[in-house]
């Protein structure tokens, strides 16, 4: 990257964490805060308007809403939790999936162009304050506290001495790592993806404006990469939303399962 910084003109300052913490727009309200509120409005409007007057034979918009609902219901919730218990968790899984999806997609929508989940506070709120308590709560409600702990920490079919090793690992994983990794996964992907897009876009801009001669032409390469990576980013944003929802459903499913 250093080689790209030309000698003449101004110094190229690469994008960094500072670009993720822009000053508040008004009264301490920042861009990601507005975007989160916007995402709730968008998703709620999408589902409530399309489901207001549902027909057995769906219209185009109803079909779109049904497809998303079906995906959250059948492909994520039912697959992970099992067809017996999944019903009550469909709204939760659907909300997680669409909420993260829309906030991620914000990263490549022109003008908005900021993935809300690149601020770790949002995914942490979802994983530590929503998913984590939910899966422990439903597990304890299903098996009782003792039964749940035994299910989670002492998996069946393991030789007794192994528990010395396995139980602390299981405990550490179930009670500390799961919620943290769930949040960090989507946060890191969004953060890194946005940073890469910034680097190529700002680098191309700098080359075009400041660099001289042949180096100016290189800005085209930089912009091309930015466009290419935008498509990659779109894919990653969808996948991360899907992964978050699948893992959340998986945790709930594991907590409900009678055997490990």
């Amino acid at each position: 990257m250093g080689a790209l910084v030309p000698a003449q003109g101004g110094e190229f300052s690469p994008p960094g964490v500072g670009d993720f913490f822009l000053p508040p727009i008004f009264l301490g309200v920042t861009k990601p805060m507005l975007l989160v509120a916007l995402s709730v409005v968008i998703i709620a409007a999408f589902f409530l308007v399309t489901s207001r007057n549902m027909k057995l034979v769906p219209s185009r918009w109803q079909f779109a809403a049904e497809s998303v609902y079906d995906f959250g219901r059948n492909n994520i919730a039912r697959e992970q939790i099992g067809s017996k218990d999944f019903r009550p968790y469909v709204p939760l899984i659907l909300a997680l999936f669409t909420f993260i999806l829309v906030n991620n997609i914000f990263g490549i929508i022109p003008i908005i162009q900021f993935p809300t989940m690149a601020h770790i506070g949002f995914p942490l709120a979802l994983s530590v304050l929503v998913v984590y308590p939910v899966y422990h709560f439903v597990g304890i409600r299903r098996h009782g506290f003792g039964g749940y702990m035994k299910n989670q920490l002492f998996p069946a079919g393991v030789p007794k001495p192994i528990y010395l090793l396995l139980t602390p690992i299981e405990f550490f994983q179930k009670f500390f790592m799961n919620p943290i990794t769930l949040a960090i996964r989507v946060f890191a992907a969004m953060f890194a993806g946005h940073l890469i897009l910034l680097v190529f876009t700002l680098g191309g801009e700098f080359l075009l404006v400041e660099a001289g001669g042949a180096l100016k032409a290189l800005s085209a390469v930089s912009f091309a990469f930015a466009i290419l990576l935008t498509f990659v980013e779109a894919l990653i944003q969808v996948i991360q939303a899907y992964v978050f929802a699948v893992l959340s459903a998986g945790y709930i499913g594991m907590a409900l399962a009678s055997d490990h």
Partner: protein
Amino acid sequence: MLYTSMILAQEEEPSPVVPHLSEVILGLVAFLILLWLLKKYAAPRFEKLYEERTSKIEGGMERAEKAQAEAEQALEQYKAQLAEARTEAAKIRDDARLEAEQIKEELRAEAQEEARRIVAQGEAQLQAQRAQITTELRGELGRNAIELASRIVGESLEDEARRRGTVDRFLAELDASGNGAGARK
């Protein structure tokens, strides 16, 4: 480069891995509002629609099965009726044949009777005509013979008694020889 910039940023900016409390709270509240809306309004509508769709499809299948059963029953009924009609037709045909046979027999008997009657009548008529003709011929022959004989003999055979006796005798002789010739023939 990223690493150094992060180090640099850390000096002046908050670290990206330290959550902002305001964002955690906002994220949680926003998500819970969304969750509540989806749970309260969206999900029940979708589930209701699915149930309706399922029941409609199942109801349709049930109706189709019922219709098929009805059709099969109707077919059975028609088949039974058809078989019944066939046996009845066969019976009627047999009866008709029998009756025809009987009628033919009766007609034949009647015709034979009629034929016999006609023949008998014809015979009787013939007998009567023969008798009449015989009588007429007998008279004629007698007259002719007498005329002939009177011409030949030249004498009058006006005498009633003699004439009858002679003629009758001649005729009886003629009859006897004629009959004898007929039997011989």
